[in-house]
């Protein structure tokens, strides 16, 4: 498995998850876990995904998601999981 973390932060609006999930499905990215909170109308979501079957370069997916975020007025980051495990797990 080759995991990545997608985070979405911004003002809550209809269809954020749908838009992101649609893109992931098209690109054969499997969602392993989703957690989401709304703090003072701010949408804060984290997804753990498996990018093993992703057909394009990972960097391209990072760019695509960033653009989707700009389109709906939220910030979307996609990072390989290792940076988080390195920092938070011994």
């Amino acid at each position, binding site marked *: 498995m080759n995991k990545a*973390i997608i*985070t979405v932060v911004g003002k809550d609006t209809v269809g954020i998850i749908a838009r992101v999930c649609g893109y992931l499905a098209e690109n054969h990215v499997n969602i392993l*876990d989703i*957690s989401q*909170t709304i703090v003072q109308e701010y949408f*804060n979501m*984290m997804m*753990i995904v498996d990018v093993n079957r992703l057909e394009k370069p*990972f*960097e391209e997916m*990072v760019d695509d998601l960033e653009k989707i975020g700009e389109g709906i007025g939220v910030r979307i*980051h*996609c*990072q*390989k*999981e*290792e*940076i*988080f*495990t*390195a*920092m*938070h797990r011994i």
Partner: protein
Amino acid sequence: MINIFEVNETNQMIERENLDVRTITMGISLLECCDSDLDALNEKIYRRVTTQARNLVATGEAISRDFGIPIVNKRISVTPVALIGGCACRKPEDFVTIARTLDRAAQDVGVNFIGGYSALVSKGMTQADENLIRSIPQALAETEKVCSSVNVGSTKTGLNMDAVRLMGEIVKETAEATKERDSLGCAKLVVFCNAPDDNPFMAGAFHGVTEADAVINVGVSGPGVVKEALKAARGQNFEVLCETIKKTAFKITRVGQLVAQEASKRLGVPFGIIDLSLAPTPAVGDSVAEILEEIGLEKVGAPGTTAALAMLNDQVKKGGVMASSYVGGLSGAFIPVSEDQGMIDAVTVGALTIEKLEAMTCVCSVGLDMIAIPGDTSAGTIAGIIADEAAIGMVNQKTTAVRLIPVIGKGVGETAEFGGLLGYAPVIPVNRYSCEGFVNRGGRIPAPIHSFKN
């Protein structure tokens, strides 16, 4: 599995607290380039550097994109040029051609600095060493990306006072040669005692002769992250304070370790070390001085500064050492005046003096760094300051360095502008009493008694 709070913490460090990897530095050995013909030597050096480092910048950028962590600088360090140029260079001007070659190679592979225009003269100078040293002013004035360093002493060898005196003159000449740019050349010149072979940070990086053909060394950063973490420990005792710094340093260093391993794997070059130094930038919130102020000093330079810095430096190491398999380089908090907004402010209001900075260098790396002094300071006085700093390194078995900028045409109260990561600095007063009689004696200061451990 990783949770949302951990993910948010990491991303907040990157987005709001200036967490970054300060540099991926590729060390490249030039020993194979030696040639008695100057043109052939230059050609070999150009080819060696541009071949070995051709993918360095692109790889750094790809890693940065994959993990979402900025990697600010991609750099190269090479074998001290005095060793490589010795058989071809008969005069200082010959060495300048190598500086131009290194500059061109750095330009062509896209790195922002190349270090190693260096000589190691801690005990004595060969003719080649001296020629290289005498070429430094012209070399730094005629190139953009070349960084130079000279090691004038060590705990094992003592201090080469002939080299110290010469470096006083060279710093002054370098300042003169770049006076129309606020003596910027001096920002690219470091005088060391106990210089490490694997330092990834400029301007003092070189690829030591104890190293392999090529190696990847990484310098992490993150003063802003430490400062933010310490806000949560306000009013708490030292135990809580120290634990907070240690945990934060661990997290920062792990990111560096990850990037270093990844770079090593993708470039096919062995991983060398992580340098744990907390490296500030002129950006607000990315300052070592602000950490010290968060710990409880009104301004850096106030009584208590040295103790606070000693504690900070030690805790950063304790946290960082566990996070990385190999730690090396300088590994300590940097206190460059012009590159740290908190330091600049403290100098401007008179809280921080060069004497207090000297005291601070006893407990942290790396030395009197990026300090603008009056342009009319004599070469003898600069040599005296270098000798003091080198003595601290020699006796305490640590690296110390001097990167002073005598700003030609400017005096106390004026400001020198260097631009970019090098920042700006108010000109700081220097003790006006002479030390000529001391530095002109010539010869060596013997190694201290505690260096005889065999």
